[in-house]
């Protein structure tokens, strides 16, 4: 095993001790720990037996793999995940064909009950799983086999966490999340978002290495350190929301001033993730930071309920409800008021006829 190879590996890649400690401090920050936790993280990452990671891709676009790799220079995180621990990764490994299958079988056999399965992509269940077959086995079979023998399963990205885009209506392949495809899976952790933020995946592994347990989760089994607060609550434009300063059209003055994108359909108020804090591409920027509303990609059913992306309210399948619910509500209220007035006129007429009839009756009686 290359347990003690990390330091040499880092040096070989031109990453100094200082860079490594800076990485550990940044991990502490992502996890919401004080900077003093940095050395403990460094010790854990350097010295601990690395967990064996097995990364499987099913019905996906490899976007989470791309997110993890992040073009550009290799970082400490890449090295920890790729070089040290990743035993099987379809996109990254050199092996192919039956060699690759052998590598997987061996990694699973040698580390039964100890490895961590990372699943990318949803798992199609219709047509006996024929929509996604690898080496003659369906994704459903593979997932049940691999996740069943894992110490923990990490669903990477929204597809694996909640079904994502493949599971959006009408879900032609019967796509399932890992939780639904592998009932009773042990220690499942959902790292949703489209794609999942590499920073958070790395932080999750580092958390496990340092504290020997998995972090507290929210009701969707997502770690609270990354999904505990809404985008809206940590948004750098929140002051503009509370003040009442909104972008009304792309490129208008408010947009150029960096005002709130709420009226442009921003789903920050309905989405929980730490994007405003951790950002993307090594902290370069994030969607709202460059003037685009949040599309709510980290939430279950996001393709069905967060669309249209540039509209406040969602559409309901078959009805274009979202855009017209308020105008129609206003119109109906007016219509009902008019109907009430008309009914009132009817009542007056009835009353008149009634009193005329009774007075006629009266005259007849006399």
């Amino acid at each position, binding site marked *: 095993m290359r347990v003690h190879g990390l330091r040499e590996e880092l040096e070989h890649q031109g990453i100094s001790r200082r860079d490594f400690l800076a990485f550990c401090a940044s991990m502490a920050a992502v996890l919401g720990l004080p900077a003093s936790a940095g050395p403990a993280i460094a010790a854990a990452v350097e010295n601990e037996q690395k967990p064996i990671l097995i990364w499987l891709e099913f019905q996906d676009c490899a976007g989470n793999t791309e997110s993890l790799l992040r073009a550009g220079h290799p970082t400490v995180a890449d090295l920890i995940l790729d070089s040290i621990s990743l035993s099987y990764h379809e996109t990254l490994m050199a092996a192919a064909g039956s060699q690759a299958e052998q590598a997987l079988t061996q990694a699973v056999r040698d580390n039964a009950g100890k490895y961590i399965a990372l699943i990318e992509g949803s798992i199609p269940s219709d047509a006996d799983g024929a929509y996604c077959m690898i080496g003659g086995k369906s994704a459903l079979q593979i997932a049940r086999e691999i996740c069943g023998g894992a110490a923990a399963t990490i669903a990477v990205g929204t597809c694996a966490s909640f079904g994502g885009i493949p599971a959006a209506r009408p879900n032609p392949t019967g796509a399932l999340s890992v939780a639904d495809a592998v009932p009773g899976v042990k220690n499942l952790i959902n790292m949703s978002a489209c794609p999942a933020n590499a920073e958070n995946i790395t932080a999750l592994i580092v958390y496990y290495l340092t504290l020997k347990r998995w972090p507290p989760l*929210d*009701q969707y089994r997502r770690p*609270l350190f990354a999904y*505990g*607060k*809404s985008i*809206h*609550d940590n948004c750098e434009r929140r*002051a*503009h*929301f*509370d*003040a*009442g*300063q*909104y972008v*009304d059209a792309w490129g208008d003055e*408010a947009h150029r001033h960096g005002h709130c994108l*709420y*009226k442009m359909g921003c*789903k920050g*108020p*309905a989405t*929980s993730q730490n994007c405003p804090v951790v950002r993307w591409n090594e902290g370069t920027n994030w969607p709202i930071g460059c003037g685009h509303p949040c599309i*709510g990609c980290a*939430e*279950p*059913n*996001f393709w*069905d*309920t*967060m669309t249209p992306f540039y509209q*406040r*309210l*969602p559409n*309901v399948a078959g009805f274009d*409800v*979202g855009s017209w*619910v*308020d105008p*129609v*509500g*206003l119109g*109906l*209220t007016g219509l*009902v*008021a008019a109907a*009430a007035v008309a*009914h*009132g006129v*009817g*009542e007056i007429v*009835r*009353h008149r006829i*009634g009193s005329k009839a009774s007075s006629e009756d009266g005259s007849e009686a006399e």
Partner: protein
Amino acid sequence: MSSMAIARSKNTDVERLYIWELPVRLTHWLNFFSIIVLSATGYYIGHPFISVAGLARDHFVMGTVRVIHMYAAIVFTLSVLVRIYWMFVGNDYARLTQLIPFRRERFRSFWKTAMFYSFMRREAEENAGHDALAGSGYAMIFGVYLLLIATGLALYTVDVSPSSPFQVFNFLIPLFEGLQMARLIHHICMWIVLIFAVIHIYFVLLASVAERTATFDSIVSGYKFLSRRKVGIS
């Protein structure tokens, strides 16, 4: 001399009867005012039609509107809960049996009133409490109130910290298929309530004017003027 004797001495069978107890009237008016505030602030929250210029630190328009919305929501929620409690412990006119036509004569009253309103019946049904049609309307609107409260609480859970006691309501979010659907239902329900309000006010006015039972005033005073013969009180 009892009031009955006075009524009789005046040769009329109209009697002043205590119908709406204090909790019924109080929650009615708390609902009335909170619904107005909630609808106005809610409309702004959904469609912020006022945009302010200048520095963000100088304004707090949306912030203020949202705070008012939350406080009004607390009043509304508690008022609705008290009224629902009173459906089980209040007098006969406040009870659930007045709202949902369980019994056969209530079911018949439902159709009689519907026929009267659609000009297919000459005479109005006179009820001491609600007519069965109105009662069903109120049962429906209390369902909508509960839906508004539930969607509101679901939306509120993302507003508060993960350790807030309000997080007990986050189980509601998946029931509505996510926060966006909860938001949509919240909007639709507001319009149902406002449409209901128009119909409600109109029919109460109608009952007050056409039937001369002082229905309109009764929600303030608690008393209605009823014909003992028609209502069936001896």
